[in-house]
């Protein structure tokens, strides 16, 4: 039942989007004087809404969208569920015990509970029988009371599964108990030593609060932002180019202003991107709640929210740039030559942030990139994942991004307006410079 709020939220998002689409599609029915029958007043969002509505309908209907969405949902499901299968509390392991005192059984059960594992102890008559059972896959590990632990395959230091953690815990605890016995400690003394806790370490500055969960969420978020931005920005680029190449742009601009057309395209494709991202996140959160994954614990929801915010801001910033670039080309090969310079800052920000997340600490470069609009969509969620962004730093970066986006949109709209009707080859930016000020 804990998942109910998330399910309701997901349903609400879907209903809102459907309602919004219907509003865009239906429009208002006020009539304008002087227009012939059937010609009606402009809709709530005017021509921009109509253009956006077409983009949404066409994109949702496209096979590419459906296939990519299914793949993304599958990847997200795998990313959420697989770790829980690996570390799940319901995992049951069979542990063979050879020549162990009765106290060993309770010790093994206690350690299993500590790492979230359920174990079934199987007493084997001798070590060779236990070894055979282990090799046959009947047992997961064997504890030999004489002082050896057997596992089927070596366990690496980076293996954080419950089984691996259990083996390490058993090895450490039994080794310590053996040492206590050799030192001549009474059981009470040994228990007191075993329960020793390290002294707390306090820092002058407050705790950063970053944990593996938040970092992992940030990692998934950065990858999600990159995939979605790459996909939808290429749609913008290709969409604008195709309208120019097919000359449908002339028919559209005969009745719609360039700014409205551009805004409608950006908003429509952006709405589809956001719908996909929100659906994925809602799906991930609900699934995480159901299977008990870490995604909804600690500060991870904050990282998820930051990811969505920066997805929107990143799209808003780049969409204008890609639209303006698309208006310069009228052939596929011309578009290809534009893709590399356009995607360079995107890829740079992504890779630097990815390395930052993977390395476990935010480098100075990531901290700087978090305030630059082209790279902030990746760097800032990374900082949030590390707990190294305060609320005012986050808002400052948002403000910088919004301001730069407004500026970029202004210039892009002028480039688009001037270039989109020029045919006969790729338009060079320097050709447009004299006309941009007009």
């Amino acid at each position, binding site marked *: 039942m804990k998942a109910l709020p998330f399910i309701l939220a997901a349903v609400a998002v879907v209903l809102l989007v459907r309602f919004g689409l219907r509003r865009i599609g239906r429009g208002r029915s006020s009539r*304008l004087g002087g227009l012939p029958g*059937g010609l009606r007043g402009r809709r709530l969002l005017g021509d921009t809404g109509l253009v956006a509505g077409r983009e949404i309908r066409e994109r949702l209907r496209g096979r590419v969208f459906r296939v990519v969405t299914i793949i993304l949902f599958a990847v997200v499901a795998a990313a959420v569920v697989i770790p829980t299968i690996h570390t799940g509390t319901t995992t049951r392991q069979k542990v063979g015990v050879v020549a162990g005192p009765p106290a060993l059984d309770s010790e093994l059960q206690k350690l299993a509970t500590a790492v979230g594992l359920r174990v079934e102890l199987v007493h084997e008559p001798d070590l060779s029988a236990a070894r055979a059972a282990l090799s046959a896959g009947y047992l997961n590990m064997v504890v030999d009371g004489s002082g050896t632990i057997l596992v089927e395959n070596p366990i690496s230091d980076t293996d954080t599964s419950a089984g691996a953690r259990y083996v390490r815990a058993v090895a450490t605890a039994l080794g310590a108990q053996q040492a206590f016995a050799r030192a001549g400690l009474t059981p009470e003394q040994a228990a007191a030593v075993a329960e020793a806790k390290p002294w707390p370490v306090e820092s002058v500055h407050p705790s950063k609060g970053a944990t593996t969960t938040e970092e992992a969420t940030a990692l998934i978020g950065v990858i999600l932002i990159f995939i979605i931005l790459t996909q939808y920005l290429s749609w913008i680029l290709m969409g604008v180019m195709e309208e120019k190449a097919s000359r449908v742009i002339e028919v559209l601009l005969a009745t719609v202003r360039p700014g409205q057309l551009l805004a409608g395209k950006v908003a429509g494709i952006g709405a589809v991107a956001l719908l996909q991202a929100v659906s994925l996140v809602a799906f991930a959160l609900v699934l995480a709640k159901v299977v008990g994954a870490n995604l909804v614990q600690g500060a991870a929801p904050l990282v998820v929210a930051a990811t969505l915010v920066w997805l929107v801001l990143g799209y808003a910033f780049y969409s204008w740039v890609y639209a303006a670039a698309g208006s310069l080309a009228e052939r596929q090969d011309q578009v290809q030559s534009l893709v590399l310079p356009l995607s360079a800052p995107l890829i740079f920000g992504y890779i630097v942030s990815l390395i930052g997340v993977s390395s476990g600490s935010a480098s100075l470069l990531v901290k700087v990139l978090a305030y630059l609009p082209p790279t902030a969509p990746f760097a800032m969620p990374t900082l949030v994942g590390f707990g190294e962004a305060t609320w005012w730093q986050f808002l400052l970066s948002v403000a910088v991004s919004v301001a730069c986006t407004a500026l970029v949109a202004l210039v892009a709209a002028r480039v688009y307006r001037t270039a989109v009707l020029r045919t006969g080859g790729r338009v060079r930016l320097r050709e447009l410079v004299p006309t941009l000020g007009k």
Partner: protein
Amino acid sequence: MLEFDGLSRRFGPVTALDDLSFSVPSGQVVGFLGPNGAGKTTTMRAVFGLTDLDAGSVRWNGVPIGATQRRRFGYMPEERGLYPNMLVADQLGYLGRLHGMDRHSAAVATKQWLERLDVADRSTSKVETLSHGNQQRVQLAAPLVHDPEMLVLDEPLSGLDPTGIDAIGEVLVEQARAGRCVLFSSHQLDLVEDLCESVAIIDRGRLVARGTVDELATSGARRLAVRVDGDRQGSWAQGIPGVTVSEIDGGEVRLVLDDSTDSDVVLDAARSAGRVTEFVFVRRRLSEVFRETVGQ
């Protein structure tokens, strides 16, 4: 009435429009003619604000054209002008709605026009899957869906088979009869002559002829159509003072006579070359008007 008033436009060293002025009355199909690069497309684009003008203005019923007027016009550009991947009916409905129609009216009009142009069975097909002729029919339906007051069509007949030409020509005439203003460009002069009440001919951005087809056909020098057995190339007419060979078409020689030339002189020359089977005063063909006005 659509009025072009003193339009001028230069693209670098090229003069596309040079003080171009003429008007297109409602209720007529007006042919817009000119050689390649004469400025026809630039003129048509100027109606819809798709090109900046260095000087001049385009007016509709005396008022400079703005966004409100353009919403009531229909425009068909020369090349495609449709989304290749969009379904035919969706596309027409969308364009109708961009011109201010509500969803229902746009759907009804789309259905009617697709039936009228005989492509109703392809309404759920993507445009790119249609034949060239059917694409052109859909292309024509696009500016008609919203029941425009004026139609501006750039080369609507190019590449069509005779059936397609008849279908589209019929629609254009029907629209003009209904009081719409119809301006279309074409290089198929015979078709223009059949379809249009009047024509405007431009060359190098300037108007070189304007009038009804009848006026242009009957104006200018007298002309004769002569057919002489045994001389299909009209060599007998070469060298007659005051006579110019205008066209030779299937053995019929069309001659232009200046004011001082007596037609009897021509008849004598023809008789001397062979048996004369045709000798008649004729009107100017549009192709002759075109060649004579643009100097080709």
